């Protein structure tokens, strides 16, 4: 009985309403934050910080965004890439048009613009549902990319259509974008932002708006009948989800790669993020992180293992094997636990709670 709730009584509704209701959970979370904020920047190599942690965090953010929409509000979307592109390009336009704008403001504004675009593309969801909607959201994906690719204004008339992030500082000369930014600065900046946004998402999902989303997801008719407006609820889901995806896209372009063309946000990105939330667990915030970790780390891990196994000569074979293993693992995880890694974790905790008794 290592992990249990016996003996932990909640004296108030506030305590019962807390995100982590058990002391053990709070300690665990504290440890993770400590690792992320203190240990990682100290011991992480540049490779780790820049090419593993950054994409992991940014993808997590996008995954949270999509999870709000798909996992909580039940609106399956394949337009994530488009929304991320929207964030990236609006951030670029903002940062170049107003060079003095603070980086946080740039991100928030870019997110808001994306939210507006999200609402626009969310309108069909009022009538269209399920896979029909999913395919319809591809319209957003393709149209937005086309727009950014085609209209030179978005790239400040760059001949190639590539945008590259101007250097921006969080304060003083602590740069978070551009080539003067150190990996640690980029990492901590992204980490803080992602943590705050994740917390905000968690709060939303456990309060009124989150309940409204879930109600719409689980049974829209009943939800409507108890007075939840489908329109505002669905559109708010699209807006907030796009806000998150927009910020993720902006971070991707500005902090991670530094220069992107619209194609960087092609359909595969949408699929990837979708993978993350499904592997991680639909309708859980921590699942978004787990899923992102899985999808970002797995190929790198596989690739490195295959190389270590002496398959270095046959790069193509390694890539093909990687795809196969990746596919097989996705299926494997779905079979083991269709509700994702987050649920797996929960079951584990459940078992721990009952341990040493089987039931």
């Amino acid at each position: 009985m290592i992990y249990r709730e016996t003996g932990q009584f909640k004296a108030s509704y506030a305590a019962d309403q807390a995100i982590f209701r058990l002391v053990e959970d709070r300690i665990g979370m504290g440890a993770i934050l400590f690792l992320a904020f203190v240990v990682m920047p100290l011991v992480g190599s540049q490779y780790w910080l820049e090419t593993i942690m950054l994409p992991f965090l940014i993808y997590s953010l996008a995954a949270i965004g999509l999870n709000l929409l798909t996992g909580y509000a039940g609106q399956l979307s394949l337009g994530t890439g488009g929304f991320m592109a929207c964030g990236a390009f609006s951030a670029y336009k903002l940062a170049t048009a107003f060079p003095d704008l603070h980086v946080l403001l740039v991100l928030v504004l870019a997110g808001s613009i994306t939210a507006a675009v999200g609402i626009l593309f969310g309108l069909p969801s009022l009538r269209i549902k399920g896979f029909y909607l999913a395919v319809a959201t591809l319209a957003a994906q393709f149209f937005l990319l086309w727009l950014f690719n085609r209209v030179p204004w978005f790239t400040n008339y760059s001949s190639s259509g590539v945008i590259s992030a101007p250097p921006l500082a969080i304060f003083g000369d602590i740069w978070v974008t551009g080539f003067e930014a150190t990996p640690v600065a980029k990492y901590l900046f992204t980490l803080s932002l992602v943590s705050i946004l994740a917390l905000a998402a968690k709060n939303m999902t456990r309060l009124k708006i989150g309940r409204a989303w879930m109600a719409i997801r689980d049974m829209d008719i009943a939800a409507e009948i108890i007075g939840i407006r489908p329109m505002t609820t669905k559109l708010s889901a699209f807006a907030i989800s796009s806000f998150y995806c927009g910020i993720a896209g902006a971070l991707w372009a500005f902090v991670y790669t530094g220069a992107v063309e619209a194609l960087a946000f092609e359909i595969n990105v949408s699929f990837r993020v979708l993978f993350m939330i499904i592997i991680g667990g639909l309708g859980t915030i921590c699942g978004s992180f787990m899923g992102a970790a899985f999808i970002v780390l797995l190929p790198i891990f596989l690739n490195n293992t295959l190389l270590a196994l002496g398959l270095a000569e046959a790069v193509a074979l390694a890539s093909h094997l990687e795809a196969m293993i990746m596919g097989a693992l996705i299926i494997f995880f779905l079979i083991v636990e269709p509700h994702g890694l987050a649920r797996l974790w929960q079951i584990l905790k459940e078992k721990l709670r009952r341990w040493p008794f089987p039931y």
Partner: protein
Amino acid sequence: QEKVQFIPSLVYRTGPYGPNGEPFANGVADYYNLVNERDGGINGVRIMFEECDTQYNNDKGVECYERLKNKGPTGAAIFSPLSTGITYALIERALADKIPIFSMGYGRTDAAYGRVFPHVFTVPASYWSQATSIIQYIGAQEGGMDKLKGKKIALVYHDSAYGKEPITTLQKLKDMFGYELSLFAVAHPGLEQKATWLEIGRRLRPNWVVMWGWGVMNSTAIKEAAAVGYPMERFIGNWWSGSENDVKPAGDAAIGYKSANFHGAGADWPVHRDIFTYLYDKGKGAGQRDRVGEVLYNRGIANAVIVTEAIRTAQAMYGARPLTGWEVRDGFEKLDLTAERLKELGLEGFMQPIKVTCEDHEGGGPVYIQQWDGKKWQRISDWIPPMRDVVWPMMVESATAYAKEKGIALRDCPQG
């Protein structure tokens, strides 16, 4: 202890463009192996190279870069990102890491301006230069540049950073020579071009079609062009639209199709003989024997030759030892690949001499036009040098604008 120079190799053998990445990667691998097997390395420093599969995908490219940049005793000597998108993503990083980037025939064109981009090399020619060469060829076919006036030229391009590169140049030339230019974007990956070709072949009927295509887009374009009866002789691809992979799937329809190229096609150079003797005969070849000498394979060789020669030049400055990236850069900036040296390398006439300067990292190399006869690529023109007077000022202007946007101070270059 053995002296080794680490050269990373970003390749794409899989993914939508895998079929094209494969021969290129094989050419590079074979040449490095040849240098090791035949010469025992570059002046005794063996080449250690490692491939990383980017799948032509930007994130993967960045990940590969970060993974490989610190390998070997002195870190990566140089990166060839092998994709315009990846090049863009690496330019800043590589500068911070002090590693040169060699984007041969792709990438950011204005990066040829060495005063702004000290670490990027785009020899022997950029897309902008190539565009001027192609237009000159068309001019010659029409009987003189002045005959271009009123002619219709269509550009069919891959709708990406890569495909858009020649547009400004072609527009500039349009103003100079008075032809009409129509633009046709084809969305990645380019499976569906019927509408484009109906418009071109049945309504617009331009005098010439120029193509900036890549991968499956090329063969599809050729097939669709044939289906609307557009004459292949008037259809010219750039150097990424002129490999065996582009014409073979189209079958006989492709006979007569033309493309630009900046190096030889075929396996008839001494270097190929060496590759057969030292590698394929011993079972050490990277690919299939009968595909040695394909256009993209040879391009891999060209890439590897320029890299090894740059390293050799750098070794002349710093000694025959493993060099850091920045030392390689210094050598690259002094690279002078003369006709004699090419002959020594067994590549006489394979490509034109290359000379890099502090200011000019491109060199404005010439291209020639080749034509597919159903079996082989036949060379059908002389080397056509670009219109440097047009292109170079454009590059300088664009690079300077970039420097301003990024707050980069222009580097001084010794004149002369």
